[in-house]
């Protein structure tokens, strides 16, 4: 397909591109916190735990005879998006609690959730195909409501980080001094982790697990190698995320690569290039 064809068929990729970009910037921004706090396994585990919520939503819907897409009232709670968010928020609260074996808790959650998805999924039968598409998203085919979900999540994350940025920084860098100054480190950590949970959960459903995790971690790692200050790292990570999502989508359209893999591949390439550049002190 030539370049003219890409722009001519904008109506085919507009929504998917929009969702990818809406996911990429906040994921990469949050990734700076994830990398600095050395909790890169947390988004993986949150994504897996939120998958349990999706499977549960389908199971409960099946047992109660309520289809999530047509449900109203209390039945709306059986929407996979809501249940997956509840599950991810619960895990975020648990991960945010300071403990010596926090890495083990995250790894255990990842493994147990993965097993739970497979075991519970066995009860779904034919519906498991639908669940797979919800669990792992698709950066090419995007439902219009995904745009609303991702846009709302990105806006909420932006507002929370605008309000609490300095407190997150103090608590992350030096929790004891922040606590002495009157901040509540655990509550701040829960709020920060909740933004991870929200964005990774929504993004996994929208663009897939691999690009959601890749866009969170790789641009942040690159930005932290190249940027001098915190502000520079956040800006660079967000721009790199946008570039990887946008240009990755373009390459996938032109060259027929899998979309998520193209986005992650570009992010990885940027990181490899940054390794050749002397790290800023």
């Amino acid at each position, binding site marked *: 397909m030539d370049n003219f064809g890409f722009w001519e068929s904008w109506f085919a990729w507009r929504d998917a591109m929009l969702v990818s970009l809406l996911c990429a910037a906040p994921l990469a921004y949050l990734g700076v916190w994830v990398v600095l706090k050395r909790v890169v396994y947390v988004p993986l585990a949150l994504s897996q735990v939120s998958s349990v919520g999706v499977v549960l939503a389908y199971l409960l819907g099946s047992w109660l005879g309520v289809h999530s897409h047509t449900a109203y009232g209390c039945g709306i709670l059986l929407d996979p998006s809501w249940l997956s968010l509840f599950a991810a928020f619960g895990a975020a609260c648990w991960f945010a609690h300071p403990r010596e074996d926090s890495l083990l808790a995250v790894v255990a959650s990842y493994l147990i959730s993965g097993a739970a998805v497979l075991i519970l999924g066995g009860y779904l039968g034919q519906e498991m195909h639908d669940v797979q598409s919800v669990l792992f998203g698709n950066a090419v085919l995007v439902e219009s409501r995904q745009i609303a979900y991702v846009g709302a999540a990105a806006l909420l994350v932006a507002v929370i980080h605008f309000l609490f940025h*300095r407190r997150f920084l103090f608590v992350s*860098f*030096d929790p004891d*001094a922040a606590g002495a*100054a009157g901040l509540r480190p655990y509550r701040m950590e829960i709020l920060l982790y909740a933004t991870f949970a929200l964005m990774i959960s929504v993004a996994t459903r929208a663009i897939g697990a691999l690009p959601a995790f890749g866009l969170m971690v790789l641009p942040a790692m690159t930005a*932290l190698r190249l940027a001098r200050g915190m502000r520079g790292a956040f800006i660079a990570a967000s721009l790199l995320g946008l570039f990887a999502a946008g240009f990755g989508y373009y390459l996938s359209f032109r060259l027929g690569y899998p979309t998520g893999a193209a986005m992650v591949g570009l992010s990885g390439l940027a990181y490899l290039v940054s390794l050749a550049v002397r790290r800023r*002190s």
Partner: protein
Amino acid sequence: MDTPETLVRLVDAAIGFQSPLLRPITFELRRGELWGVVGPNGAGKTTFAKTILGLIPPVSGKVETLAKGLRYSYCPQRHRLNPSYPLSALDVVIMGRSAFLPLGRGPGDQDRQRAKEELGRMDLGAQANQPFRSLSGGQQQRVLLARALAVDPDVLVLDEPAEGMDLLGTSDTLGYLRRINTSGRMAVLMISHHLDDVISAVDHLCFINQHTDLFASGATADMASSEKLSTLYGRQVDTHVCAGKTHVHVQGL
């Protein structure tokens, strides 16, 4: 002479995390006092300091704050911090003041000016824009001290403030703490293993050793005796005064 205002009081407080480290203790921290907290490694000094700050609740008993709107500040040991954050020395000092700003508001000119003043006092004015992680250990510790002081605290708790500092850095830092404390506006509690220096700098000493269930506190002149220090450390510790300064050494060295 008026009794200094009591800021914080531990009343029959069993300090510890889930289980008490020591028998219940009673302790008062008054404005204008400069305390040194000494004891062997793992004695419970940091737990005691964090109980005063309200970071760790006592297992039993209570911590009373006797003045309204007290501002606490804590200067940790630098090696407890994550060094990967790309922050300048000035960023770290301003961070302390940002805790008191309204949500969503960044530091203003006044905050920056105050942070620069404290960095200047720590002889780090020229390093204000240098990355914190590129500074030497002693310089990092002074940046953390500047951060603790830049919030104009009522209660200042320092955990090994002279860690990693050279001879002059240690002397200057302790001298500075002593000078600012003569204004009587804050209470300072300082954990230290540098007995010679801390005894010279502080007016009160607090001994802690959870291994022997020892907690004792009082004026430095009363506490810094060979007998009491020997009891604290479980070895013969000798003291002698030279040029007005108390020196401590352990027998057998």
